[in-house]
């Protein structure tokens, strides 16, 4: 039987036991919470870095940061936002929701799931520990060779970055593999692929993108670290090496990475919009195939990041064409979202506002995308603030706003309490206005010739007005994040009880109690329709609710607590944590001393053996 303490009774156990239960947990919901809290902390860290950057740029010839510190801050802001905020925060949603949405009791490999989290934590701590030594990475999140070579970046800063990213890559790939198998294999009876919620589909596509994109950056980083640690010649120009090798490998990863970042946002919006429009997602199949098409096309467009490197007219033209093609599936999705709202019964709750905000800002980011793909224009836009504006619209608009909406939408499911709508609306409007006022003018300073990644600019350039405006607006975003944190905390204690289905929603997670019991479903649900919960409530759902009787969920809730269910849940385990620790020590060892690295590898091997010999559940499943 399960030994992990039930979430609802944990207040009664001692602190030590509670901490131990979190350390050894392999419950996908708790791991999801761990992912969320960790990525939220990094969101604050990287956000503060962004505000420091904006302080420096608020005035020309700013003297708040020296150039080296500035370069460290923009490098860590970008790296952390991509790898330690966006990806793990999406992973938090995947973890919590995927098993619930497909009617499963956990992911396919619960311990591997714990391993993914701890490895993410290890890699991110390793990279951030560089601040303690004053050696924070300063090569940009894109780390272009040969600036990152030992010759031009002596010290350990780039090694912290490269090794940290390698560890984070292991975590991402392990998690992605887990979700692929979970979605393929753990769907409830009747949950065919084409009945899965769109969010599950987006997770599925994202996971495939991760397992096929990350090996490219892994190879690129291994080359980089071999160059730096062992003196190989991959990016050594004097030895015939070519810095373009890094750019190709990095962007073969880097562009799919953009879709790795935004597809979860698509998924969240595709759940929120139908719920608050009281209509199914419009053109489900088209939505799914568009995402798959984006996934495939995403691997054929990488060199549009390299139009200024002089690849030649043919290559430029080909990549411009393939890039613009992506506008087609993206356009389909956009129209389907709008059509989902059209003719619905739209309730403007906070999650819905965020979803609508997502549509608006993503539309802007999506429209500047094809402009960037037009090679002649890109010769100006590339590496200017125009690009900074563009991708913040895509990533802040396309992902962060959607994630915020997701938090408001699923918070009741996760905690059992509603978030305050009142504070939520303040949060939304403040964040939405501030982000537009921050990122839109960046297009203008870009067109006015301001390059990216400059720690300072001259007073006579005519940029100071917009920069001051942008900096002030950026603090508006900071303020909105504080409002959000306030809401998170206050609602946890004082929020109204949520019940099973506070939003009158459509997918399986809303059929079970909030927060869900450890084993999720007392009985694995039988699925006969897309939007099963909606179907159970309203049938085919034509006409008004008054004519149809709603299922009284509260009865089911009580019945479930009375009954002791004999559900086999896997045991908690600390081996995943120990394997992750071993990996992190091995990576850190390459910074300290080779013996430490060898020790880390040995530790990892021992821990892997212990893990694989540990029985997964009681009684041991001998056959």
């Amino acid at each position, binding site marked *: 039987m399960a030994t992990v303490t039930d979430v609802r009774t944990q207040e009664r156990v001692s602190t030590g036991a509670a901490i131990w239960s979190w350390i050894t947990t392999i419950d996908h919901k708790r791991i999801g919470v761990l992912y969320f809290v960790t990525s939220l902390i990094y969101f604050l860290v990287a956000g503060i870095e962004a505000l420091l950057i904006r302080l420096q740029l608020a005035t020309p010839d700013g003297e708040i940061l020296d*150039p*080296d510190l500035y*370069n460290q801050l923009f490098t860590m802001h970008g790296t952390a936002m991509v790898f330690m905020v966006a990806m793990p925060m999406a992973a938090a949603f995947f973890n919590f929701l995927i098993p619930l949405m497909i009617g499963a009791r956990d992911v396919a490999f619960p311990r591997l799931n714990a391993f993914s989290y701890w490895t993410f934590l290890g890699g991110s701590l390793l990279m951030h520990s560089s601040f303690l030594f004053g050696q924070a990475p300063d090569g940009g999140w894109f780390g*272009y060779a040969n600036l990152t070579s030992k010759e031009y970046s002596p010290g350990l800063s780039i090694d912290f970055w490269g090794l940290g990213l390698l560890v984070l890559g292991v975590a991402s790939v392990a998690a992605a593999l887990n979700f692929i198998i979970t979605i393929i294999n753990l769907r409830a009876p009747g949950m065919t692929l084409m009945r899965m919620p769109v969010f599950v589909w987006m997770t599925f596509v994202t996971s495939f993108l991760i397992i096929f994109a990350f090996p490219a950056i892994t190879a690129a980083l291994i080359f980089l670290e071999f160059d730096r640690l062992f003196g190989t010649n991959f990016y050594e*120009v004097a030895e015939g*090496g*070519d810095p373009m090798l890094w750019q190709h490998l990095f962007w073969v990863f880097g562009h799919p990475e953009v879709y790795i970042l935004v597809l979860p946002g698509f998924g969240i919006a595709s759940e929120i919009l139908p719920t608050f*429009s009281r209509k*199914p997602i419009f*053109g489900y199949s088209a939505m799914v195939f568009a995402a798959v098409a984006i996934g495939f096309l995403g691997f054929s467009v990488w060199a549009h990041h390299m139009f*200024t*490197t*002089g690849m030649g*007219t043919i290559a430029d033209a080909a990549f411009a064409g393939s890039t*613009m093609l992506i*506008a*087609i599936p993206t*356009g*389909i999705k*956009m129209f*389907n979202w*709008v059509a989902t709202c*059209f*003719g619905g019964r*739209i309730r*403007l709750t906070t999650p819905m506002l965020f979803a*609508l905000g997502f549509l*608006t800002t993503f*539309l*802007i980011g999506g429209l500047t995308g094809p*402009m960037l793909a*037009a090679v*002649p*224009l890109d*010769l*100006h836009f590339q*590496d*200017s603030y125009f690009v900074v504006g563009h991708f913040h619209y895509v990533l802040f608009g396309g992902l962060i706003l959607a994630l915020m909406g997701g938090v408001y939408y699923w918070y009741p499911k996760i905690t059992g309490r*509603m978030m*305050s*709508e009142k504070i939520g*609306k303040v949060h939304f409007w403040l964040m939405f206005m501030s982000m*537009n*006022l921050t990122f*839109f003018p960046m*297009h203008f300073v870009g*067109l*006015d*010739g301001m*390059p990216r990644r400059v*720690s*300072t600019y001259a007073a006579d*350039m*005519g*940029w100071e007005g917009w920069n001051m405006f942008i900096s002030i607006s950026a603090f508006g975003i900071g303020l909105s994040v504080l409002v959000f944190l306030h809401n998170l905390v206050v609602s946890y204690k004082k929020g109204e009880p949520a*019940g099973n289905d506070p939003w009158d929603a459509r997918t399986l997670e809303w059929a079970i109690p909030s927060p869900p019991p450890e084993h999720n479903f007392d009985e694995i649900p039988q699925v006969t329709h897309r939007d099963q919960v909606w179907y159970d409530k*309203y049938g085919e*759902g034509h006409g008004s*609710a*008054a004519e149809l009787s709603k299922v009284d969920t509260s009865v089911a809730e009580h019945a479930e607590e009375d009954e002791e269910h004999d559900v086999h849940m896997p045991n908690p385990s600390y081996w995943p944590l120990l394997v992750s620790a071993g990996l992190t020590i091995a990576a850190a060892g390459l910074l300290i001393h080779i013996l430490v690295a060898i020790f880390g590898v040995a530790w990892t091997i021992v821990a892997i053996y212990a893990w694989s010999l540990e029985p997964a559940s009681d009684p041991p499943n001998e056959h």
Partner: protein
Amino acid sequence: MRAPKHALSWQSMRLVFLTIVGAITVILLAGCGAVDTPQTALFPRSDNNQVINDLFAPLTWLAIVIFVLVQGLLMYSVYRFRVSDDDDSIPPQVHGNTRLEIAWTLAPSIVVVIMLILTYQAMAIIEADPPEDALRVRVVGHQWWWEIHYPDLDVVTANEIHIPIDRPVYFELESNDVIHSFWVPRLMGKRDLMPGSTNTIWFTPSEEGLYAAQCAEYCGTAHAQMRFHVVVESEAAFNKWLDKQREPAAEMTGDAAEGASLFVSRACVTCHTIRGTDSIGTIGPDLTHVASRAYIAGGILENTTTDVAAWLSDPQGLKPGNKMILPVELSSEDIRLLTAYIRALR
């Protein structure tokens, strides 16, 4: 269990909506009335840059029109179909509409085809081979300054490129260390300087002037201070400049002569070349005619007596990370004499 009641009424919600739409419009208008700033890409001063600008306008308008249409449709849906929170009615459960979906697959496809045709047309012009009679200029990027050669004219200089008006100019771009990017926004889009290979870009300047520019690829500590200038001038002025640049350094007298000997004794010679003297260093810029340039120190300081003196007294403070590390601190007298010398290197 129902969601809690709205805190904000419909009226106030609409007000907020209008505010945001208004705010975005104001920003947009502000952007459209683009101001002529020194480094703007929106006021082209060359033929090829004009081609880019002519592509920018239609693509931008296309994007704006699409935004207004889609966003309008979304806003209309939200406005038209909004209900209050306690409305329990259920709309028809529409799952899709094949015809509509085909329509909005075709619509973006057509837009993409239009954009691609326009793009390829522009590319055909700007990526064509430069004309035979183009002036050849070789630019070598250094951390954090620009070495300029006119290979066919036997001229070497730094950080300030002179080119004649109405004659095609063809740049060969190389790097001495890491990747840099050559970007003179008024004259042309950017092209990277790749270590180990040569990149090219060309255009024909169409208006005289002094154009500000700077490195556009992150290249380390002083990336933000790796600036340069391009002077577009009449054929006659350009030829005059060429003649001057080909000469060795002028003979020095008085303070300048004393400064010249300090230039040697204070180890400046190890890094800088001054043709016609014993200074043949190649780590820093060629200073033979440094006084003829409008700016010094990689385009960050004006070439005045005050600024040259300031630079000599604290190069690391003014441009942190740069490679000019003085072996000994210069006395104020040293600085006065060296400044006199440098200002005399016309």
